[in-house]
């Protein structure tokens, strides 16, 4: 009986020692890794974001006689251009406004979207700019288009990059594209929203 107890104690002690050994061995095969950031800085003096309109714009009138045609003046701020009342009355009449967009910041921008908002007073077909086509609105006899050239043959497309310090010119072309004469009509404000994002 005593012998048996002693034997049992011995087995237990051995098992305990083995367990302690395994634990110690396992604890030895473990490493703690630390990742520490010392400081994170935001340097506002070195990086700027600043894309906007710049300069002035003198419209070019197109078409035959000036009867029933006048091109409103453009008022330009950094974030907006407003065209005063414009009159186009017969086929071929047009007003073309060259507008300069400048990236005065230190980060290149990418043209993400050009979206038209139609005048509320008439039915229009609107088209957003894509990577291959310009944005435009066709409202009855009148077409509004943002193009990459004065004659409208080059598209002002999304996905293009405006480098830091760079400029680009977009042309607002408003033209009488209908084939018939109007009995007299006034369309309310039409709008294009040009959005640049970080490249």
């Amino acid at each position, binding site marked *: 009986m005593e012998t048996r107890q002693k034997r049992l104690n011995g087995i237990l002690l051995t098992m305990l020692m083995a367990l302690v050994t395994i634990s110690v061995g396992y604890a030895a095969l473990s490493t703690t890794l630390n990742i520490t950031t010392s400081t994170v800085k935001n340097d506002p003096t070195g990086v700027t974001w600043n894309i906007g309109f710049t300069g002035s714009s003198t419209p070019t009138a197109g078409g035959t006689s000036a009867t029933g045609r006048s091109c*409103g003046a453009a008022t330009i701020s950094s974030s907006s*251009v407003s065209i005063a*009342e414009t009159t186009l009355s017969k086929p071929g009449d047009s007003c073309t406004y060259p507008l300069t967009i400048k990236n005065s910041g230190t980060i290149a921008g990418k043209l993400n979207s050009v979206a038209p908002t139609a005048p509320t007073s008439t039915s229009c077909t609107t088209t957003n700019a894509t990577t291959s086509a310009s944005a435009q609105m066709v409202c009855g006899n009148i077409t509004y288009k943002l193009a990459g050239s004065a004659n409208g043959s080059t598209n002002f497309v999304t996905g293009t990059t405006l480098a830091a310090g760079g400029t680009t010119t977009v042309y*607002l072309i408003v033209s009488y594209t209908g084939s018939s004469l109007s009995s007299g009509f006034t369309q309310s404000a039409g709008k294009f929203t040009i959005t640049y994002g970080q490249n």
Partner: protein
Amino acid sequence: MRRHNYKLWKYAIFSMLLVISVMGLGFSAMSQSLSLTTTSLKQDPIKWDIKFSGTNTVTPLSSGASSVSCGSPTITDDTATLGSTHLSAAGDGCKYALQVVNNGDIGGKLNGIVTATTSNSSGYTCSQVSSGRVLSCTKSGDTSEILVFPSSNASITASTIGSSTASTIASTYVNPLINSTLAGGANTYIYLYVFLRNSPSSTSFSGLNFRTTISYTQN
């Protein structure tokens, strides 16, 4: 030791989250919308109105001894229908002076003249010379020629055109009409001439009908 490591892990994770937050905030701010607005777009009620006024004069051009009859035209806004024309001898002709008015707001430009037969049982064969600016009709076995053409020249006679070819008549007397302009509120005359050149072997012919189309476009 483990408590120390746990604290370090906490600071590391917090710092990383802070960096991610700062980066996220910075990225969403880098976007710029520019607006381009037209205040209003007017279309004035422009009028386009070029037409025959109805005012006209008919002048027989006779070689002298022959009998010339130039029928009076019937005129609507866009059509002048000439009455029966009788020419019997070389040099006979008729001059129809037709007034054109521009009662519209926009100037017009004359950019097309074409004379063509509408029906022909005269025995003469007609051809359009210089893209229809002169209609020349001849008859086989006959030296006579019927010429029809418009002009801005009010003083053309058989002697004036003499023996000039139809193409020469076109370039000299018809072409000056092309690209002529008519301002809003203005009027002008177009003279339509019908001549018989050389006497026909047959004393009479009939059944030759033609139309002269004059086109104006926006100037």
